[in-house]
């Protein structure tokens, strides 16, 4: 029975990219398994963050959820409607409700269009309102995101990085969405500006009741702004829990190592801290390791890990993990607490 608090339900989502390899006579197509059997739910009004090293499939997941990439298989239920089965037209009609904000604010804004045109564009495309009402809506949106409406005739290059990200946000909000995928919206910004944009996103969420899928690699920012966090590695979710549990009691060896690698802005604490340093780098998703995809770097791998794929399962309510060593009695597997909080 569907929990009616859930806005987005992702089930066994897969997105493979076929790529051609080899020379002319020896051509073969291999599959880049960018997203490989991912499931999660996002509740109305919450922020679920996706974290993990680059190339682990965060952006592809975000895009596949919004059907900007056609999923290879799996379901994406939005208000119990399966987006993967909708026709182009049906999807188009739903588009206003589901929006995306990208990392690179300069590449995602047309340099030849004024800010008014950029922010008003979704309204024009979806044929919402007259020139006058669109103008008024652009004024309203600019005020909402903290931009002076007097600047609406200016062009993207006349704005700073933080302001350009506000333009992006205003455009994403033009059609009153309910669900917004934010793909690293602050990664390219300076520290002092990141806080401005994060606070804006938080305020807008409160004000407008937005639901976010927030993609990021900065774990401290994720801790600050999420309700729940999913940790991805090579196209799979390794662990998912509410923020507090995940940061204070991570169970998966990858989550533990990842958190151990993140420095904290506290010199005294850092001085005492022991790190678990993962060896090597993330393998290519076109040639993912057998068994547990993390086994080539896992400090705790056992024989079984190289052959058996660990089942992604709920350990206790709201806390799911994919690891052979985590038993249902919630025992922590790495003996020393890694995140010395």
């Amino acid at each position, binding site marked *: 029975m569907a929990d009616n608090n859930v806005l987005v339900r992702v089930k066994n989502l897969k997105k493979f990219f076929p790529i051609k390899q080899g020379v002319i006579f020896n051509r073969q197509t291999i599959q880049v398994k960018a997203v490989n059997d991912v499931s999660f739910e996002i509740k109305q009004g919450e922020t679920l963050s996706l974290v993990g090293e680059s190339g682990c499939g965060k952006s592809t997941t975000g895009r596949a959820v919004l059907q900007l990439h056609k999923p290879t298989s799996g379901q994406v239920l939005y208000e119990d409607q399966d987006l993967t089965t909708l026709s182009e037209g049906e999807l188009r009609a739903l588009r206003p409700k589901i929006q995306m904000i990208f990392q690179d604010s300069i590449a995602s804004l047309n340099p030849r269009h004024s800010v008014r045109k950029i922010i008003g564009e979704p309204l024009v495309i979806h044929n919402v309102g007259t020139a006058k009402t669109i103008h008024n809506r652009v004024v309203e949106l600019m005020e909402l995101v903290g931009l002076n409406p007097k600047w609406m005739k200016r062009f993207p290059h006349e704005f700073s990085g933080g302001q350009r990200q506000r333009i992006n946000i205003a455009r994403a909000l033009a059609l009153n969405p309910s669900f917004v995928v934010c793909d690293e919206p602050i990664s390219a910004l300076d520290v002092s500006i990141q806080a401005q944009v994060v606070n804006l996103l938080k305020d807008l969420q409160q004000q407008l009741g937005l639901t976010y899928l927030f993609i990021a690699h900065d774990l401290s920012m994720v*801790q600050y702004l999420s309700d729940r966090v999913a940790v991805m590695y090579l196209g799979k979710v390794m662990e998912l829990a509410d923020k507090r549990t995940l940061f204070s009691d991570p169970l998966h060896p990858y989550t533990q190592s990842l958190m151990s690698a*993140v*420095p904290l*802005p506290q010199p005294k604490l850092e001085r005492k801290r022991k*790190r678990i340093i993962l060896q090597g780098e993330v393998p290519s998703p076109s040639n993912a390791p057998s068994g547990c995809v993390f086994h080539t770097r896992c400090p705790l791998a056992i024989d079984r890990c190289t052959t058996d794929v660990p089942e992604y399962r709920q350990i206790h309510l709201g806390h799911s993990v994919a690891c052979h060593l985590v038993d249902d009695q919630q025992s922590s597997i790495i003996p020393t607490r890694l995140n010395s909080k």
Partner: protein
Amino acid sequence: MILQVKDLITRFYSVDGVVYALNGVNFALNAGETLAVVGESGSGKSVTMMSLLGLIPQPPGKIEGGQAFLFENDKPQDLLKLSERQVRRVRGGQIGFIFQDPISSLNPTMTIGKQIAESMIEHLSLSQSDARKRTVDLLKEVGIADADRRFDSYPHEFSGGMRQRVMIAIAVACQPRIVIADEPTTALDVTVQAQIIELIQRLQKQLGIAVIWITHDLAVVASMADRVLVMYGGTVVEDALVEDLFDNPQHPYTIGLLKAIPGATGLGEERLESIEGSPPDLLRELTSCPFAPRCQFVFDQCWAKLPPLISVTKHHRAACFYDVENEIPRKEVEHG
């Protein structure tokens, strides 16, 4: 002290006008220490280091003032006065460097082994075969598996993290006294960042090198620095031991930065305080405090002139006219 930079002024004469990139940069580096340099993009971190290394493209750039003494047996040598040839000897010799983007600083058409060996031959006058042997040892040392074979690989055959290891090998190849690392981990994932930080710290201890580490990540600073310079608008606005900087920041910009990141001031649950406004426009000459337009403590004096970097306590300097702790204007103290 092995390096002392005084009142460094560098400008760019660009098509848009004069870029006042450095407006009197002051700092010193002690033997063996790790000095972190933080500041937002455009604050002059890279230009400072490029000025010392003779890497400013001239034109459009011009070093218009200042001194940069490199001390050897306490005998100072002003890097800014050296000839092109002399600077080359220092660069890669006494001072090694690592950039954010190793691919652009490695020669794509030369094997990495050859690139390292050549600099050893040049700076240490080693023979071909000695240089090869030492290069292979060094590659092993920085964690390149199968170093003998990898000697003959080209830069593009390495991953981002591995390339950064190669850069590190080049930087330390000629037994430098100083290594300057400009955002060496910014493009890397945190797990690889942790590997690189560990590697550099290990080499630093083994070889007794002083490291200047440029970053915009205050958490990285907390994890590895002894001392920190905070830059803003082409000036050093604060210079302190790392614990002092986090516990007792003196400059309003530093105070703002620490409140803008999660986890520095508490448990990361409180609302972040953002610094409103944006960094200064460097197309205008600085005649007042560069932070004045964004500063909540600004008063008359701040608009009248550029605040000098003055001692607040023994090992702590700040460039601000206001004493935030006591909420009164600072008395002007001796420079230095």
